[in-house]
């Protein structure tokens, strides 16, 4: 590869064949991804054609305040081609976690991608960006995360915000958010941003989003807050296999009771499935092996904004802000109703004292009326 000229890149298919995959493996992969994307069967041909004719998409993958669970999830998605074709050295021009280069070489690789493919590369961001203290809380190669993001975003075709960190700040943005951790969409304006929340997002979902961008040359259809509709339009609750127990009103009361053994609904022990939009119930995790609810633990709502402050995880009702960790709306409401009842009792007694004259005159007037009626009889 000549370093001066823009390299002629092989197609995805060519790269795969070179890596030793058969055409059969390749077709399995395109079929699987089409299914995950919810495409009709003609979509398989579209994806196949796109990956056979298009040269690979230049990708810059930045890591800021994060734990790399997104990358880990991605390389463990169910088909090995996902990791090989998209995340391996073939596709990634720059990613701190997996690239071979380091130090100045790595910085040079990133800049080369930015200057060789302006307006063409996809910027993937994993992690939130701390903005407090002039961004000093996260610096790479002597530059702050804010500056790196702005520089990389300027020439990007689109931005993919991987995981809850990049989408909504995740745990590091929990109150009091000491570093000013900020999600990507609040820092970058005027670029299409795909939010793929989750801690981490499901590997197949990540692969599906990237393949969609490659195949159709545009970003997938997004919902109102920027998540791909194909994966985030339904709540975990809607596709949960324990849903019939919910409708039947059969709930686990505690994790060690008989109901838990029977696999009843985890709603009362804090499952956030009814308020969480994700594909866990359908796609599941680790090659479709399981997902939290299937393993007997409620959903914690990791793909939802603010899930860390909407706890506790093991109670249905969130804590009431400003009243201590154990206060729920029901406790406060009950107290308010009690105070109201006491106030009314006091007011009723007060009324009989303070309005005595008026009340007495009504009573007298009423009695005299009644008496007159008796006389007339």
């Amino acid at each position: 590869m000549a370093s001066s000229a823009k390299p002629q890149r092989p197609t995805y298919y060519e790269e795969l064949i070179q890596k030793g995959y058969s055409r059969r493996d390749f077709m399995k992969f395109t079929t699987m991804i089409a299914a995950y994307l919810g495409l009709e069967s003609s979509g398989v041909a579209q994806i196949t054609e796109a990956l056979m004719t298009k040269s690979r998409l230049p990708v810059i993958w930045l890591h800021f305040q994060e734990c790399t669970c997104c990358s880990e999830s991605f390389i463990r998605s169910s088909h090995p081609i996902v990791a090989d074709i998209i995340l391996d050295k073939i596709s990634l021009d720059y990613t701190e976690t997996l690239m071979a280069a380091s130090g100045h070489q790595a910085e040079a690789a990133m800049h080369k991608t930015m200057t060789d493919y302006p307006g063409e590369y996809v910027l993937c961001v994993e992690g939130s960006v701390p903005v407090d203290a002039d961004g000093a809380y996260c610096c790479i190669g002597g530059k702050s995360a804010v500056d790196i993001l702005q520089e990389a975003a300027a020439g990007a075709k689109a931005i993919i915000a991987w995981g809850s960190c990049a989408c909504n700040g995740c745990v590091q943005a929990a109150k009091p958010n000491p570093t000013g951790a900020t999600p990507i969409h609040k820092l970058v304006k005027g670029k299409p941003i795909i939010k793929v929340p989750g801690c981490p997002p499901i590997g197949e979902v990540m692969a599906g989003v990237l393949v969609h961008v490659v195949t159709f040359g545009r970003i997938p259809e997004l919902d109102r807050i920027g998540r791909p509709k194909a994966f985030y339009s339904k709540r975990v609750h809607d596709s949960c296999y324990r849903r019939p127990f919910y409708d039947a009103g059969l709930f686990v009361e505690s994790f060690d009771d008989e109901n838990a053994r029977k696999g009843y609904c985890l709603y009362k022990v804090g499952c956030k499935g009814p308020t969480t939009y994700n594909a866990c119930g359908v796609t599941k995790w680790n090659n479709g092996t399981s997902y939290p609810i299937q393993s007997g633990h409620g959903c914690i709502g990791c793909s939802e904004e603010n899930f860390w402050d909407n706890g506790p995880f093991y109670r249905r009702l969130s804590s009431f802000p400003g009243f201590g960790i154990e206060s729920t709306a029901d406790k406060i409401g009950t107290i308010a109703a009690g105070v109201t009842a006491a106030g009314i009792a006091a007011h009723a007694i007060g009324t009989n004292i303070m309005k005595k004259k008026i009340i007495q005159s009504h009573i007298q007037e009423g009695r005299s009326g009644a008496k007159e009626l008796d006389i007339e009889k």
Partner: protein
Amino acid sequence: MKNKVLRRVYVWERPVRLYHWLNALVIVALCITGYLIGAPLAIQSNAEASHSYWFGIVRFIHFLAAYLFFFNFIFRIYWGFVGNKYANWKNFVPTSKAFFKEMWDVIRIDIFLKRNREHLAVGHNALAGFIYFLTFIAFAIQCLTGGGLYAAMSDGWLPALFAWVPGVFGNDQTLRMVHHITMWFFIVFAIIHVYLVFYHDFVEGRGEMSSMGGGWKFIEEEVFHKHKA
């Protein structure tokens, strides 16, 4: 002593009365089912899930009552523009200095119980009107948050109108929390409301309680002429 002569005044028109009682019924249903949805009863049962559906029915009643509540609310807003002067929206929204003055009078006389004084209003007194204005805001909050929560599980055009709401709150859990807290506003409101109806009936003796039945209140002849002037 002199006996009072009372004049009959038609205060609450039939649509207002129907609105009131339908509203009372559905709010009770919504609070009970809503509370159960938030904190379901622990039922120990050996029945298979396929044989029972009680939680589904509780939710169904909640959604059905919510539809009635919503349309009833819309109707009341409409009636605030076409109904009689006691139903008019101006009874609820503080628009003049006199409105605030009357509110203050009611607070002194009826809340802090000024000795042997009465505040005699024919329709809503200003403070009651303003509290109803707050309940209308609470109605709107419940319609918006409830509709927003419901939108994700429905294909109907009406719930779809509320699909933007979760985006405003950022997540459904917060939305749910707001919906839940507002329920307590209704519970506290209902306690005070029913008590104050008793209070006015007892202290003023003008048929406050029955007025929501027949629509009539009974005004003392001299007060009647004072209002007329």
